[in-house]
């Protein structure tokens, strides 16, 4: 009896301790280790930070040479004052890790195809895709190449050492929250991880193309319809380099082979339906002759996925060689978008097609055919660790083009031709030197020198200096192409279709101090047809027209104008479509519900303001219209086709209203564009009234679109900010749709004392338990800005909430 009395409670205690010390699976739910997670000594309670900073004011770090002062302003942005660059980048690594360690670790694991380690088999397809696209391979190339440059090597080594010093300081309790919930530990940082992060961005911004979709369209419909649906240069584009800018350089003709396009239906695993129209950015600079201060104004707002922790981390970095402020990428040294006392710069995505696909003719397991000879295949064996299952070993073939992404081992969807990827992101490059240089740039020459290190992903770098220059250059390593080269999948068994070199950097599309007095870009075509090289890519048409309209007025511009323009909600596509729709819709027999929608559109000023109901109604009609008009192309994922852009759709409807493609196949009569507009209007109006009835409230635009700043892990909805009250949409300067938007808004006035404003949809801290996790979101949503505190030296006043000294 006494033995039982001992045994029962002891047994219960042991069971409890063991069960709650590890993960538990109950039904289909997977619980984290509840003991350590709920313990106030080690668990999430330790991440429940107070709003006041309670850190040690005096920190000893072995890796420092001198003493570094870090001042945190009211928004907890760190301002770093170091005595040399070695200490500066060490502290950038340390401080970034202090706020964003989990994020940078997670993103680099994602990029290298290691999500299965955390989430099990459901991550395997994603991991294999990322690995077979060669993202880790590209990062390895870059990490090795960076070692050749003593400056970037030093910067990366010091940054890495700083991150690792922070990791070494962690205890079970101070570990970031996500590790505790997902039950894993941080890994040491390395230069390779930084290049992984840069390649993650390269993949995000240049790692997609429509070669498969265009090839499928060509094979299904022929050249004429393919060109109609997916034109290289539709009418009415407003390019980055102003029309009329001369291109004064000779261009040698390329050997242009006879056109051959791969036969078959090609469907890729990354197929995500219609083109990613929500990725993009705006930037511009206005010459001092056109501003109220007489000095240039520069604005930059990159549009990316809206995530928490934010993709950007704001910092000021000061040493004897540099004093720069701006947005940094957690995981990478230097400021990516920012300003110093003399100059400012910003980026938008170039969209240039730098990825081409080649069919591979395998001769045996380790040889492929090229120019009538055998070429060896190199093999890479990737071991993917899978949580709760055996390791998965993927075998990836490499050709001289690059990795064979699709073959019999992976995702052919019925196509039996192995396909290799040629992508400039795989080429060794050192983009870090660009940012290192821009951080220190004073003049236009400094800016050009810095840009010459930049290969991929192609960006439109806008620049303005206190000295009075404004400029923009589309910078990247862009292949020279004969007309239409790389729009379609090409034959890899001959060198005829390979790239024949690259456009010299000084011949990339660029302009300095154009007569019109401003430069701008919004992901549109870089140049018109007078640019001597052929190019193709993925371009935007609406934001560029709007910003150039706004900047083209005959008046002096102010900082307030710049802020207003970044938050402008005017939709050019609505302006293009609504009058056309009204002309074609017969309004005589509308019922009251339809009449209400009709009136909304009639009185609309084409602004997607947060509370607009007309915007919701139009969006419903527009979405329906795109489905109805292009019914022949659907289902997109089965046919491997892409929807034409909205811009092209409206043009085709206007120019070819009776085209056979206008017909809606499921109905008996043969329809034309006017019928499509009528059907879309009626269906959209019905959707509008249904939404109102189902939700019991007015379909205000913000309610319908549901802008959400989501935690990087979709499961962590509790750490996300849903239903944000704001206007905007894709193709609008305020490019905020449900999931994407301005990830950093910056306006710089290059006066004698540089002034700047900025905001991003997040906060300094990556900790969901911190007040600073999402502290800026409401300011951002309201279209407001913070004045950016640009210090020359440490100060003692109310702008600083906490000062720390770091020393050996």
């Amino acid at each position, binding site marked *: 009896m*006494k*033995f039982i*009395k*001992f045994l029962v*409670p*002891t*047994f*219960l*205690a042991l069971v*409890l*301790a063991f069960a*709650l*010390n590890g993960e538990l699976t109950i039904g289909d739910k997977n619980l984290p280790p*509840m*003991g*350590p997670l*709920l*313990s*106030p*000594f*080690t*668990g*999430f*309670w*330790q*991440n*429940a*930070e*107070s*709003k006041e900073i309670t850190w040690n004011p005096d920190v000893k770090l072995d890796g420092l040479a001198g003493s570094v002062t870090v001042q945190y302003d009211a928004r907890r942005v760190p301002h770093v004052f170091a005595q040399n660059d070695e200490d500066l980048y060490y502290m950038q690594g340390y401080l970034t890790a202090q706020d964003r360690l989990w994020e940078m670790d997670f993103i680099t694991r994602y990029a290298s195809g290691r999500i299965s380690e955390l989430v099990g088999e459901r991550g395997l397809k994603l991991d294999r895709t990322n690995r077979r696209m060669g993202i880790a391979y590209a990062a390895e190339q870059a990490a090795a190449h960076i070692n050749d440059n003593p400056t970037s090597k030093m910067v990366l080594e010091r940054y890495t050492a700083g991150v690792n010093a922070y990791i070494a300081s962690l205890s*079970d309790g101070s570990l970031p*929250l996500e590790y505790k*919930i997902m039950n894993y530990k941080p890994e040491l940082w390395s230069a390779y991880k930084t290049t992984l992060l840069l390649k993650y961005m390269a993949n995000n911004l240049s790692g997609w193309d429509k070669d498969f979709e265009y090839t499928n369209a060509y094979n299904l419909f022929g050249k004429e319809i393919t060109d109609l649906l997916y034109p290289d240069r539709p009418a009415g584009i407003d390019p980055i380099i102003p029309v009329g800018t001369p291109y004064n350089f000779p261009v040698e003709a390329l050997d242009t082979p006879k056109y051959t396009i791969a036969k078959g239906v090609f469907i890729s695993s990354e197929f995500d339906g219609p083109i990613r129209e929500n990725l993009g950015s705006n930037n511009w600079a206005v010459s001092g002759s056109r501003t109220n201060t007489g000095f240039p104004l520069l604005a930059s707002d990159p549009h990316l996925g809206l995530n928490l922790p934010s993709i950007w981390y704001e910092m000021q970095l000061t040493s004897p060689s540099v004093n720069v402020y701006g947005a940094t990428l957690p995981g990478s040294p230097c400021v990516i978008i920012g300003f110093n006392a003399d100059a400012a710069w910003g980026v938008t995505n170039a969209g240039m097609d730098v990825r081409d696909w080649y069919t591979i003719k395998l001769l045996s397991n380790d040889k492929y055919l090229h120019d009538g000879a055998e070429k060896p295949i190199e093999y890479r064996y990737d071991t993917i660790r899978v949580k709760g299952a055996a390791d998965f070993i993927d075998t990836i073939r490499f050709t001289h083009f690059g990795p064979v992404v699709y073959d019999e081992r992976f995702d052919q969807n019925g196509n039996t031709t192995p396909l290799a990827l040629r992508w400039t992101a795989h080429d060794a490059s050192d983009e870090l030197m660009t940012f290192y240089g821009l951080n220190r740039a004073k003049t236009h020459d400094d800016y050009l020198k810095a840009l010459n290190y930049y290969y991929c992903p192609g960006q439109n770098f806008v620049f303005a200096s206190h000295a009075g220059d404004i400029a923009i250059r589309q910078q990247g390593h862009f292949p020279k192409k004969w007309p239409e080269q790389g729009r379609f999948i090409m034959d890899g068994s001959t060198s005829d279709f390979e790239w024949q070199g690259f456009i010299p950097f000084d011949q990339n599309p660029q302009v300095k101090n154009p007569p019109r007095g401003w430069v701008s870009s919004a992901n549109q075509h870089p140049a018109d047809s007078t640019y001597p090289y052929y190019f193709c890519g993925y371009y935007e048409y609406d934001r560029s027209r709007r910003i150039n309209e706004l900047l083209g007025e005959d008046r002096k511009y102010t900082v307030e104008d710049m802020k207003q323009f970044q938050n402008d909600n005017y939709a050019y596509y609505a302006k293009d479509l609504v009058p056309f729709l009204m002309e074609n819709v017969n309004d005589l027999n509308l019922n009251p519900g339809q009449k209400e929608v009709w009136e909304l559109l009639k009185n609309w000023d084409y602004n997607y303001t947060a509370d607009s109901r007309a915007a919701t109604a139009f969006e419903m009609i527009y979405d329906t219209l795109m489905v109805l008009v292009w019914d022949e192309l659907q289902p997109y994922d089965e046919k491997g086709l892409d929807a034409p852009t909205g811009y092209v759709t409206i043009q085709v409807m206007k120019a070819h209203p009776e085209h056979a493609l206008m017909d809606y196949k499921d109905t008996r009569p043969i329809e034309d564009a006017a019928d499509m507009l009528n059907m879309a209007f009626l269906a959209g109006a019905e959707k509008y009234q249904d939404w109102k009835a189902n939700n019991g409230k007015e379909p205000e635009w913000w309610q319908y679109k549901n802008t959400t700043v989501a935690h990087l892990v979709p499961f*962590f*909805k*509790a*750490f996300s900010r849903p239903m944000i009250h704001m206007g905007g949409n894709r193709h609008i300067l305020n490019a905020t749709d449900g999931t994407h938007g301005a990830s950093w808004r910056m306006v710089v006035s290059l006066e004698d004392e540089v002034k700047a404003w900025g905001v991003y949809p997040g906060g300094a801290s990556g900790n*969901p*338990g*911190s*007040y600073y996790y999402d502290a800026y979101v409401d300011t951002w949503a309201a279209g407001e800005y913070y004045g950016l505190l640009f210090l020359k030296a440490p100060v003692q006043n109310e702008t600083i909430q906490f000062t720390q000294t770091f020393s050996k």
Partner: protein
Amino acid sequence: MKFIIVTLAIALVAFGVQLVLPWWSLALVAFLIGFVSNLSGWAALAAGFLGSGSVWALYAFLLNSGNDSLLAHKMAALFGVPSSALLMVAISALIAALLGGFAAAGGRNLKQLVASK
């Protein structure tokens, strides 16, 4: 009186030990103090329950109040329980309380077992 002393002893020692050792170390503390306690079986269970539970409850409560319940509400949403910081404190403390209670009773009853031989 003895009960209060044992409860406090468990709470204090468990607090100190958990500053350096993992969460389950509180069971070792409760077990050992239960072993030397001279309480009845049920009293040892209650002392372990209250001593361990109160440490977690008070510490969690303290951390939560500095944080204005910000994270506790998010964690409640993550686990799909009602949005109450006090409930999260109670759930946390219950883990420590149960573990500490069983361990203290086990320790006390081990002594009875050893003493009777």
